[in-house]
């Protein structure tokens, strides 16, 4: 094993495939930020790139690039640990390779269609070939079917590999979650002419993907990375994974009700949505207690400081973005004013970054470490690790800044557009052109640029970290699972 050099011989089959997913994920991350910046400029100068690259297209690409890069990150993370977790080579690795290229080609084609065709006649041909018109999941129908096919291959590879090798609590939860991930996406493919019915099913994908299946997927990835990063005991992370899944499903599934307040569904969704939304922060509070217990009792050490840093950022980001920012506007009494305003965007920015982007970035650092021959990535890094520290600081500062700016904009919208003007079109435009709104959007752009600088630094760091390092990381072998190199720890 060559330490400090990027060498694919340091990786197993699944890890080689995972690296491909991670690279595309980073490309899409760049696209997400780029189109987000263009959309942010268009809030301030609506004529910018008008009829060339409209706001609606930039926003759509910004959101969809985010969803897809996170999915790439999750798939990559699972492929990364599949062989190590199961103890055998991946079943159907060739299918996985083909699925990767098919998915990547499809994503490329969809982006080109969005950029150059953009709109169609609004008939079935448009729906199948250009855009389904469903916010957040705008992919044309052929791409929808492709996504399900790729996810089925992914499921087959995961379930088949675990079946051939060994099962564990993590792999069991993961496999069941992948069934839900594929199944739920199908619910978004119903097409009806009734907008209420259409939205009813559409929320099953948007809410339950994010607040149920993705959270569980992240729980599995987190459980595995804690064993790898810190040497946490399997029985502990598995127990907490089960608890988290129970709490998440207990509160998250009926928490779906907070999306049914104003779309024409019956009024009983008010109490259901309100009650279960109130329970949704409890899993996050549970994590606070558990992390304090672990930190206090074990005084964990880790050689992969950047990955650990991003795992900690994940804990805070998830708690504030999903918990605090989410609960602030999910009761119907207040949601009447805030629903669909920049409040939602504020909550979305912090929660998606906190809950999902951070854990993917942590995994990128784990991958780079192994790719460079399990290189030293603990304390005393070359240049004192300034690049990862600054990129982490700038990315977090940028996202928090955008979150606060959008919060202020949403607050103004709630007052002027909703409370004073009564949700009329004139109210909408009065709010959009109000100085409070535009000033907040100016700050959102500034913090968007800060985020972009952080991203550039992150890419630079991922490409160079550990490059001239000669120290290898140390390895723990645990008596509970002899033969499994469970974690690297810092000794110097």
């Amino acid at each position, binding site marked *: 094993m060559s330490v400090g050099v990027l060498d694919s011989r340091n990786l197993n089959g699944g890890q080689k495939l995972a690296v491909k997913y991670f690279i595309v994920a980073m490309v899409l991350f760049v696209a997400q930020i780029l189109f987000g910046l263009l959309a942010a400029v268009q809030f301030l100068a609506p004529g910018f790139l008008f009829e060339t690259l409209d706001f609606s297209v930039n926003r759509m690409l910004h959101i969809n690039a985010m969803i897809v890069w996170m999915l790439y990150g999750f798939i990559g993370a699972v492929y990364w640990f599949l062989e190590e977790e199961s103890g055998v080579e991946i079943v159907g690795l060739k299918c996985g390779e083909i699925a990767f290229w098919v998915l990547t080609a499809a994503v490329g084609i969809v982006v080109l269609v969005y950029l150059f065709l953009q709109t169609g006649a609004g008939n079935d041909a448009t729906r199948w070939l250009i855009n389904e018109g469903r916010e957040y999941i705008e992919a044309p129908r052929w791409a929808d079917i492709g996504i399900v096919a790729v996810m089925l291959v992914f499921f087959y590879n995961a379930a088949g590999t675990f079946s051939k090798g060994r099962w564990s609590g993590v792999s069991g939860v993961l496999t069941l979650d992948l069934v839900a991930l594929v199944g739920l996406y199908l619910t978004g493919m119903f097409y009806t002419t009734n907008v209420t019915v259409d939205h009813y099913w559409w929320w099953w994908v948007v809410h339950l993907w994010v607040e149920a299946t993705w959270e569980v997927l992240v729980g599995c990835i987190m459980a595995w990375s804690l064993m790898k990063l810190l040497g946490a005991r399997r029985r502990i992370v598995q127990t907490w994974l089960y608890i988290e899944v129970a709490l998440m499903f207990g509160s998250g599934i009926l928490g779906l009700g907070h999306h049914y307040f104003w779309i024409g569904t019956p009024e009983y969704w008010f109490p259901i949505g309100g009650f279960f939304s109130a329970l949704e922060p409890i899993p996050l509070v549970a994590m606070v207690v558990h992390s304090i217990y672990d930190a206090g009792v074990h005084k964990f050490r880790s050689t992969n400081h950047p990955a650990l840093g991003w795992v900690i950022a994940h804990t805070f980001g998830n708690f504030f973005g999903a918990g605090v920012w989410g609960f602030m506007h999910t009761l119907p009494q207040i949601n009447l004013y805030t629903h669909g305003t920049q409040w939602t965007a504020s909550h979305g920015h912090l929660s998606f970054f906190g809950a999902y982007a951070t854990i993917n970035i942590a995994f990128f650092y784990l991958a780079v470490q192994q790719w460079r021959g399990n290189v030293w990535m603990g304390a005393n890094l070359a240049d004192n690790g300034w690049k990862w520290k600054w990129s982490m600081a700038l990315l977090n500062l940028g996202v928090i800044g955008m979150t606060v700016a959008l919060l202020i904009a949403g607050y103004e919208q709630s007052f002027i557009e909703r409370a004073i003007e009564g949700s009329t079109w004139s109210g909408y435009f009065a709010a959009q052109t109000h100085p409070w709104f535009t000033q907040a959007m100016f700050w959102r752009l500034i913090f968007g640029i800060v985020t972009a600088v952080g991203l550039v630094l992150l890419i630079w760091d991922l490409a160079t970290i550990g490059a001239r390092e000669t120290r290898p990381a140390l*390895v723990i072998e645990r008596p509970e699972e002899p033969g499994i190199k469970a974690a690297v720890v810092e000794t110097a």
Partner: protein
Amino acid sequence: MPLPMIEPVELEDFFLNLLSAAMIVLAGAGYAGLYAWGKLTRRPGFVISAYASYACLAGAVWVLAETSHFEDFWRVVAGLMLIGYFAAPLAIWRLCTATHAAEHSEHDRPNITP
């Protein structure tokens, strides 16, 4: 039982309502965190602070209930929320000690080798 209706928040209570909702989650986490740290370090000051944080949480729930015009069902929701937030950290602490108990035996310690 008739379906509970909702009365939107008054405009002048808008900020108070959002702030109280945020405070519920923050004070809830503060209560849980301080309680866990107090039990871990066996310092009663933190446990007392935890209960003070819970008092803030209860106050925030009261403000939220008032500004949101909670009636009937909604008051039950608020009550359950208070009970749940009180009991959850205690139950989670017990789970923590139970899940980590086996770890303290010597034979289960990790073997660190170069």
